[in-house]
């Protein structure tokens, strides 16, 4: 077990290193200089700026320096917002995305799984049909359409939630619902299919023939096995929800990390892009790692190899 976990951690570190390296060199091969757009008064100023950002040094030294800084958790200084560190910018934006992401993840897991259970246990009855229609719609309607529809209905027509920003707690309702909609729909389907499959297994028949109550059969025997594929999906899903969605942050006017990322891309703010990409990558790799380890603990059938 310990060997397995250590191996997984090493793999994760290797993946993160690869991502950093690829992103770093990809950024460097982009034609054009990040300061080309600015009108610099003379060559001396340009040289000074290049020196400050370390452009005057050979590429491999820049790379080693970047790696060194990364290990110490320093993402460098933004190119566009002079003097502000990337850490600070991420630190300002991430809490919004994190709050929304955590709430949305809770919503997704609780609502998605329970709807999936209801739907599977009432297969082909009206509740099942209704939930399936809803989950089909949830995975069909683009998030920005949902978001604008939500704003139009609840903000403009009914005036219940604020149209912009998250200064009030009510401002979080829309983003959480909209971000969670797609994954909720997906998890509902996943849970339903998985439970239906498990219910046909022999051990369920055994459990029933032992005379266990239906509740015990479902909760103890069916759910525990049926939720395994859901756990696999939940890890990367939480990572992607928490790292923010630009569209939803744009529509609801939230200064989150998704917005920062897209802005930095449009502004060609390379250190920001690097910083956020590696931040996302680390986040994703860690969640996947946690899920993988948890999976082995939950499902003893899986061998550590």
């Amino acid at each position, binding site marked *: 077990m310990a060997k397995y976990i250590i191996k997984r951690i090493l793999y994760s570190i290797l993946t993160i290193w690869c*991502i950093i390296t690829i*992103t770093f060199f990809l950024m460097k091969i982009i034609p054009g200089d990040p300061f080309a757009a600015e009108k610099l008064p003379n060559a001396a100023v340009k040289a000074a700026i290049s020196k400050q950002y370390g452009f005057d040094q050979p590429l491999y030294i820049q790379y080693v320096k970047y790696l060194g800084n990364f290990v110490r958790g320093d993402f460098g200084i933004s190119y566009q917002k002079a003097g502000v560190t990337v850490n600070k910018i991420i630190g300002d934006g991430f809490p919004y995305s994190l709050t929304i992401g955590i709430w949305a993840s809770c919503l997704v897991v609780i609502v998605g799984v329970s709807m999936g259970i209801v739907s599977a246990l009432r297969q082909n009855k009206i509740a099942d049909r209704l939930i399936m229609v809803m989950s*089909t719609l949830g995975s*069909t309607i683009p998030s920005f*359409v949902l978001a604008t529809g939500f704003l*139009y209905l609840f903000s403009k027509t009914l005036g219940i939630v604020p149209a912009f920003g998250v200064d009030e707690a009510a401002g979080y309702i829309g983003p959480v619902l909209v971000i969670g909609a797609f994954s909720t729909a997906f998890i509902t389907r996943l849970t339903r299919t998985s439970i239906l499959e498990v219910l046909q297994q022999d051990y369920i028949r055994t459990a029933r023939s032992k005379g266990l109550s239906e509740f015990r059969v479902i909760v103890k025997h069916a759910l525990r096995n049926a939720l395994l594929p859901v756990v696999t999906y939940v890890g990367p899903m939480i990572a992607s929800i928490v790292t923010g969605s630009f*569209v939803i942050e744009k529509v609801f006017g939230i200064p989150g990390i998704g917005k920062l990322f897209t802005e930095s891309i449009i502004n060609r703010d390379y250190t920001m*892009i690097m910083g956020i990409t590696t931040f996302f990558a680390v986040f994703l*790799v860690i969640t996947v790692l946690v899920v993988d380890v948890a999976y082995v603990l939950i499902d003893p059938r899986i061998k550590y190899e």
Partner: protein
Amino acid sequence: MAKLHQTKTPPIQEQVLQAQASPSASESAEYMSNPWDFLDESRKDAEEISRKSLTYAQDCWFRLRRNKTSMLALCVIALMVLSAIFIPLFWGYSYEDQNLNFANIPPKLDIYQLDEDTYVYITKEYKAVLVSEKGDLLEMAQLVNDDKTNRIYRYEVGGKPLVIDYSIYFNARKEMQQLEALERKGKDILAGQVRFLQKYEHSWEKDDVVSAHELELIMENKLTRFEVSYDSQVITAHKTVSNHTYIWGSDSLGRDIFIRVMYGARMSLLVGFMAALINFVIGVFYGGIAGYFGGRLDNVMMRVVDIVSSIPMMLYVILIMVVLGPGLQSIILAMSVTYWVDMARIVRAQVLSLREQEFVMAAQLLGASTKRILIKHLIPNVMGPVMVSMSMQIPSAMFTEAFLSFIGLGVSAPQASWGTLCNDALMGLSSYPYQMFYPALVMSITILAFNLFSDGLRDALDPKLRK
């Protein structure tokens, strides 16, 4: 092997066995009574399979055809594709034709009757547009004077003055600000105090206390925005007609939304199909090779897949845009770079289990080359899951395209895709919701159709999975 078997005549024992197994008991009894007679000519056909045997594809198609939902979805997709191809060819406007006079005209018009056959529509910007009774937009009315201090537009139609007074809402707004200030000081607002309430909304008693929030809702939702008078008489809307010139209305530059949605369908569908096709080619070969060879090569190839999939797609998009410039080809390329990994994983997993099966060993023993085994034996066998995953990738590619266009990284103006249309409509959402509604509706319906179709396809290709 199978072919060889068919060409040979079956051995005698087998014939006898088949004859014994024939369904009719009396016939076989008769046959057994004199085993040495020649058979009747007609009996020769007894063992023939009268129906054509179905190939796997035909069998799937048969099952798919019985699934009404997915056939309906297929029809919707076909209709969408055909109209995306053909409607722009003969429609009266092109996607880039603008008419600034007819900007932001909704699909439903409240028209005012001025004369026997003169009708006018007042836009949200208080422009007067002459329309026919059927709803054809004719021309702008002649503007005489734009009185900004009193918030009045004066037009001349047929020699008589048409006056649009839009001060009501603005005065109410001004009043609201004073009332809100009053409420902030902690004083109650009485209905009798509120001038616009007195004038336009009579359900309140004079000394009822109203909150600023209630007042704002009344102001936003109930108050008329403007008052129209023609020849010094106040007139009200005559009737509502459909816009005949622009059936789905026009956007902020006076372009026909219908044709832009249809044109956007071209872009979005093209992106969807191209992305699916490219991913199919790359994913199947990459996954096939990784799965078939296995071992260290597989390990390395799958780590590459892990790394490619953990770099955010946005990054590829940006890099490609910087090199190639924004546009359709960049979007398609960016999606090809990222999406093939899922396909590769699916194909690899399938090939990993298939390569252990006997038919692969048989092919290897017969001396088939690796290339032949992959292309002729393994890939046709993974087509089921691959087709399903392809039909799911089309809507998700369309999603991504819309998303990229929505954040301004998509096709550039005046071209349109569903994402750019929605993005353009976002600005004026509260005043012109129809500009968002139609592209969003068409997009949702198309994606729904693809999803339902791929569900049906999955059931048809693999009936075991059917739940």
